């Protein structure tokens, strides 16, 4: 395709990979945290709630900087992960996914939590009387009922991951082919006088991808809602 240079295609593919991984990995964790916040009472709940919201409150650059201080090669957590699990984030696409996942996390948690809070506990009670242990109640009743919320959370996370720039570039820099996501490429174009047109091309690609995901998710969510609401 002539529309984008090979390097730009690489950035598109990378952004997709980053956004998909960020969403998929963060989602189960977001469901769990949302569940804790919506249904459990424990010491430090408000603290957890605050930490979850931090990426929203902090300027992205700060988040990226904190990530660097935590998950960098020299940082304690980063070094430990690299040594024991062989999981390296610094200057890798995995780091971009981590940053994107963290930035989208509060959005996912909120959406899922909101859905959880409207599930009628009476249905869960009914499931329990039918012999379902807690985890089964969750999997067979709660989870399907909050599906619209999970889809909403996932699409918010995905969109955010597609657009995330500040934390990503601060944490993993911009290495073409490895960590250069679409937003980094767009940013670079915008730094150069006359780069607007090129930037716009990439913006268009980004928007098309996100819209496709959005419409897909709407369809899924509508189906899920319809199932729950009847007919």
């Amino acid at each position, binding site marked *: 395709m002539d529309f984008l240079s090979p390097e730009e295609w690489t950035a598109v593919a990378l952004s997709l990979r980053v956004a998909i991984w960020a969403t998929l990995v963060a989602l189960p964790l977001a469901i769990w945290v949302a569940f804790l916040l919506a249904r459990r009472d424990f010491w430090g709940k408000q603290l957890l709630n605050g930490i979850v919201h931090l990426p929203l409150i902090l300027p992205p650059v700060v988040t990226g*900087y904190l990530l*660097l*201080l935590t998950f*960098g*090669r*020299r940082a304690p957590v980063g070094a430990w992960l690299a040594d024991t699990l062989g999981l390296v984030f*610094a*200057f890798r696409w995995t780091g971009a996914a981590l940053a994107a996942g963290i930035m989208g996390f509060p959005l996912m948690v909120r959406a899922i939590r909101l859905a959880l809070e409207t599930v009628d506990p009476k249905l869960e009670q009914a499931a329990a009387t039918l012999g379902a242990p807690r985890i089964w109640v969750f999997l067979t009743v709660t989870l399907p009922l909050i599906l619209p919320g999970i889809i909403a959370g996932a699409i918010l996370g995905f969109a955010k991951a597609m657009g995330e720039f500040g934390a990503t*570039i*601060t944490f*993993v*820099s*911009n*290495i073409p082919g490895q*960590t250069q996501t679409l937003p*980094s490429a767009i*940013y*670079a*174009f*915008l*730094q*150069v*006088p*006359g*780069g607007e047109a090129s930037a716009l091309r990439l913006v268009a690609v980004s928007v098309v991808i996100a819209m496709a995901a959005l419409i897909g998710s709407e369809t899924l969510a509508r189906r899920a809602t319809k199932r729950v609401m009847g007919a």
Partner: protein
Amino acid sequence: GQVTVFAAASMKTALEDVAADWQRQSGHKATLSFAGSSALARQIEAGAPADLYLSANSGWMDRLEEQGLLRSGSRSDLLGNQLVLVGPAGTAPQPLDSTLIDALEGGHLAMALVEAVPAGIYGKAALEYLGLWTDIAPHVAQADNVRAALALVAIGEAPLGIVYATDAQAEPRVDVVAEFPAPSHPPITYPVAILTDSKADTVQAFLDYLKGPVAKKIFLRHGFTEPPQHK
């Protein structure tokens, strides 16, 4: 009588010292707005209420000049700078030759965006001039600005980085391990100009002060150099 100055973010410390001194001398206040040179230039295009533009990048100044947004005759090169190779404090001096890649020890060379941000553009030019670029390019981590690249070295995430001398001087956690020869890259200049729309009566006085000996002394103290003569 208040002057609003749009200045490149990398000049923050130095310019703040100068403005404070000017206020002490003249009793007038200079309001300083720091952001990326590109963002500031676009804002000026959009009619920002700025009196003076101090860029780290002559490209953006050229563009404003073409659009007739600069008061004619007010543009000049205010300062110069030097490009250096830095490593975390204690790093041994490093010759600018093919051993550079080994010195990275598998790590990354931190630079500003090599296509977009001036420090990155100069750095890439210098490496090309030295015949090192092709080999080292895959190992370059590009930050969104030169200070972010500096930070990567300062916290030890990158074993080496290319930054301005001014940055290296301000950061105690890094040592200069090599200086790039002036001919290896285009001259580094910080152009300044009064904007056509400026209404502040003190703007000329402030510009004169910036060019004057007191300010120059402060700038030099922060590591800036006289502007390069050839233009």
